[in-house]
């Protein structure tokens, strides 16, 4: 088990190096892509700015706090695109061409190999915007979080990665079972989009759901609450939910892999 994880981390490192080399081959396009991504990631904070300057905003948040939320959200979106942005492209490519069968005879688990092939340097644009906006919000809020708050925020990001790995695993399962998933990814993206707003805007039942069964609140709401020092004990269920989603998705993946009949060629 430990050897497997060490091997997969090495594999991730090698894939990362290859991805960076590939991006550097088209430097101009890469730079334009990063600049556009920074610009694009500015639209959501701009919208929030408009909401909070032209109206009273949402309950429980002021402009500076919502900027912290947006900064952390951008950080998370950048992190997930950087870490796993390529997974679905690789999965589609392998399954359609029949190359997925090769993964089955490799020494590492096929799911691990797929998740380790996701590095995408284009996520760096959102990461930069997220860092800048979070820093700006910290300055505006005059926020000096203690080590416990920082640790909690980091832990929620770690849980977010586990949750997203679970989501990716479910999508990869769909790809190996259906081959052509069409706009299913878009549907999942829309569902994940519920986590792009503070959960206070949703009815109580949905708030509970986003902190338990579908713990999307973990990727921006929970860390921002932690840094603002107003994290409730009920938010701990979100962390448990992340690991539960990942465990269930791996179980579904393993069952589906047993029924896999190959495709492409």
């Amino acid at each position, binding site marked *: 088990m430990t050897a497997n994880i060490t091997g997969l981390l090495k594999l991730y490192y090698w894939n990362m190096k290859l991805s960076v080399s590939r991006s550097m081959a*088209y430097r*101009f*396009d890469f730079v*334009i*892509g990063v*600049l*556009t991504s920074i*610009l*694009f990631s500015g*639209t959501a904070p*701009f*919208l929030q700015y*408009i*909401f909070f300057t*032209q*109206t*009273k*905003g*949402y*309950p429980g948040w002021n402009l500076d706090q919502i900027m912290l939320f947006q900064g952390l959200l951008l950080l998370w979106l950048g992190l997930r695109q950087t870490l796993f942005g390529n997974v679905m492209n690789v999965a589609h490519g392998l399954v359609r061409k029949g190359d997925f069968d090769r993964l089955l005879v490799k020494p590492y688990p096929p799911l691990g190999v797929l998740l380790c092939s996701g590095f995408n340097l284009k996520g760096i644009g959102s990461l930069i915007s997220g860092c800048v906006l979070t820093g700006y919000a910290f300055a505006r809020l005059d926020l000096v979080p203690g080590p416990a708050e920082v640790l909690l925020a980091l832990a929620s990001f770690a849980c977010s990665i586990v949750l997203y790995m679970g989501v990716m695993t479910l999508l990869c399962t769909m790809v190996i079972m259906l081959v*052509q998933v*069409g*706009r*299913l990814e*878009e*549907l999942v993206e*829309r*569902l994940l*989009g*519920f986590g792009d*707003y503070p959960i*206070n*805007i*949703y*009815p109580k039942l*949905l708030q509970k759901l986003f902190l338990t069964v579908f713990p999307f609140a973990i990727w921006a709401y929970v860390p921002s609450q932690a840094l603002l020092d107003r994290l409730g004990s009920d938010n701990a269920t979100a962390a448990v939910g992340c690991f539960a989603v990942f465990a269930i998705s791996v179980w579904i993946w393993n069952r589906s892999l047993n029924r896999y009949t190959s495709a492409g060629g």
Partner: protein
Amino acid sequence: MFFLKAVQTNIKQFMQYRNSFLISIAIHPFILLVNIFLYRSIFAHNGTEEIKGYTLSEMIWYTAGITFVWIFIWNFAERRISDYIVTGDLSIHLLKPINIFWFELYSAVALRITGILLEFVPDLIIYSLIYPPDFLTALSLLKFVVVCIMSFCLFFLINYLIGMTAFALKSNSGLNEFVYISMNLLGGGLIPLDFYPAWLQRVCDFLPFKYIFYYPIQVFLNKDSVSSWGSWGEIVLAQLAWIIGGFVLCHLLWKVAIRKFCAVGG
């Protein structure tokens, strides 16, 4: 003849991926649901019936209107034109008996007819069941369809111009994304322009983007400012002016660019 064949082919392609179509119908209500929660929360927190001249129902339907406008205007002309130029396939198209501009326009129209029939109509029914539009009348819907057709032409011309930049830039994906963001931001494709500060609204007045999103959605919402025939006619005329300007610009730039075009590959 080509136009009818293009429509037929697009419907066949659409039907071939029925699952995608069903998923697309399932996707759009999620956008509406998020916006219902978002605006309900904002309106409740503000304790007011109207914000910037919009009621809760109008704000929710404004976001639905954005989805509808996208269904009417979406096309890939910019990607197709730049692909022809970069791959050298343009030389093959130049030999065809139909002008590439009209070929692309017919293809885009065919694509949108399918989209309107199989996405706009079901979406409008589903959305209306979720959140009934108390402002909508048959006449305002008809007026909306007309301005959306004009928006489609305008968006097609913008896309065509972006596609032509491949003559000079080769890879124009960055520029394309930039225009896409600007169009959303400055055209009312994210939020009504009335929420913007006055200076930004003034900037938007000088750009064609508000005639793609903002005004068609105002017509859809049957807002007082555009409900009379006179004001509706003014919008259509302004759209027409931008379309004529865009068409002339496309034509002139094409003439200049095609003289310097050199095909490699294909």
